[in-house]
């Protein structure tokens, strides 16, 4: 079953000015249910723009976005986000610092319920029990700090919490925008493991931007490469299994006609 389809999606910022930037150029992409695709590419290649087009931060100039059979091209952002999980690179962006862990989770938990009487529902004992169980899975001791404001947590804890919040109600697609890049290596590893487990357990369709070439090949079942607003490589199956980091870089050079000029690329 196809989960996400992008058909010739284009977006140009500041059209007609000197700053004109073709951020997405006729991008075509099809993700099946349960696909986990990693995306690599230099800065400005259009990775984040692609995510923002899917979440609805802006409407695309051309093309069509279809999520789980529904055309969402012109659907408003807050309506789309009921079924889209989005994690940012900055751990501070995913949760409300002055609200408690419990309240943050309640917001995430309630978002899928569409009935209007839920407007005045409060956090029930049962909800709290569910939150506790979920937090315990993180193994960070957060289940005993549910009344504390999220602002007191470390970056890694906040990102783990955000991941939990984004997946608490299983999203149709999960967008991870370098969500471990701002964390220290040990914490990043932990959050990554957590991501892998949650995505695998629930068969969540997932797109993940990374600058780590090793990760790009190791995680998930597809690797996409973007360059100047286009998806230039889509590697999967046997081809992907055999591919090494060097092969990937070589393929990129072939496609883009130049080296991957980016000091943030990690070759480890």
């Amino acid at each position, binding site marked *: 079953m196809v989960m996400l389809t992008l058909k010739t999606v284009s977006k140009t910022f500041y059209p007609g000015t000197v700053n004109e930037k073709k951020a997405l150029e006729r991008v075509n992409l099809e993700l099946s249910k349960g696909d986990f695709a990693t995306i690599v590419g230099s800065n400005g290649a259009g990775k984040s723009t692609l995510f923002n087009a899917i979440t609805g931060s802006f409407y695309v100039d051309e093309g069509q976005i279809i999520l789980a059979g529904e055309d969402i091209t012109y659907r408003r952002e807050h309506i789309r*986000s009921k079924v889209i999980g989005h994690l940012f690179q900055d751990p501070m*962006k995913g949760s*409300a610092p002055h*609200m408690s862990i419990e309240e943050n989770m309640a917001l995430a938990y*309630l978002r899928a319920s569409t009935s209007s009487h839920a407007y005045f529902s409060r956090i029930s004992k049962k909800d709290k029990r569910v939150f506790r169980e979920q937090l315990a899975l993180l193994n960070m001791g957060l289940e005993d700090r549910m009344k504390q404001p999220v602002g007191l947590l470390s970056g890694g804890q906040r990102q783990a919490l955000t991941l939990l919040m984004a997946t608490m109600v299983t999203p149709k697609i999960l967008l991870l925008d370098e969500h471990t890049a701002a964390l220290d290596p040990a914490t990043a590893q932990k959050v990554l493991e957590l991501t892998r487990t949650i995505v695998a357990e629930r068969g969540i369709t997932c797109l993940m931007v990374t600058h780590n070439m090793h990760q790009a090949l190791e995680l998930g079942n597809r690797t996409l490469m973007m360059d100047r607003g286009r998806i230039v490589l889509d590697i999967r199956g046997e081809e992907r299994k055999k591919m090494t980091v060097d092969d990937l870089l070589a393929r990129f050079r072939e496609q883009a006609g130049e080296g991957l000029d980016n000091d943030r690329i990690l070759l480890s």
Partner: protein
Amino acid sequence: MESVFTFSILQSALELGFIYSLVALALFISFSILNIADLSTDGCFTLGCAVGAMVTMSGHPFLALPAAMAAGVCSGFVTAFLQTKMGVPSILAGIIVNTGLYTVNIAVMDFSSNVNLFGCDTIFSLAKEVSSADWYGNCYKIAIVAAAVLIVGVILAWFLNTRLGLSIRATGDNEYMVRASSINPVFTITVGLCVSNSLTALSGAVLAQYQKSCDINLGTGMVTIALASLIIGETIIGKGSMFKRVVGVILGSCLYRFIVAVALRLNVPAECLKLVSALIVAFAIAFPYLKGQAAFYKSHRIHGRLGANNGKGGDGNVDA
């Protein structure tokens, strides 16, 4: 004699403190929670006062309160509409609405600049007739306003913990999170400002009945006063549960009125009250910052850094 005088000062300070605490609670929603400086507060307060006074005059003192709140909701809606749908920056939206409300308020008061309610039934006069006991005559006013604030405070604290309340709080707390989590900021800002302005107007309506008059300039400076109450409350109570913070705001309002009463008692002329208010606000806002600076300064002195550099060790400037 002295003690009786102090008691009556305390009593009227409390009465006014409770009435004005509704405005402080309104700013608590717009300023602290939604992170929006709603400058339409002055006009909205007068609007509530005017609507309250006119409806009271027509013989419906109880209807006056919801009527004023409804007027406040409309005012809040316009402010919210300007900033969410028209792209007007929030501060400007407040100023624009505030300016427009002046005319609206005059019109509500039948194009006169003040209205008297002498001889009309008010919630206070109706309550007074219930009993003629001495103790009752002393405290019925405070009982009414305290009850009103208690009800509003409890409902507000409850509301801010519902799903809608949480969404409103998140809107002011983290815009990125809001965008990613199916909250419609247009909706939450609108609801927040409507609730906030309805409380401001309610406060105006209660005040109109309390002082049996309404004046077109009644609301001038209200936003400063409410802000002072709010910040005094947040300074003394600090962060905590919603209920605790709501109580803090109410306490702050009473404390502010008490400070003003003391200033009056010290024979500060009534014309200077606005200046006194401004000083209190400036001090209340500066206090947490100064406290932090003082702590920093002190710890550096203890470690000898500033003390060593500064021959006299006295009033060395931290920034220098």
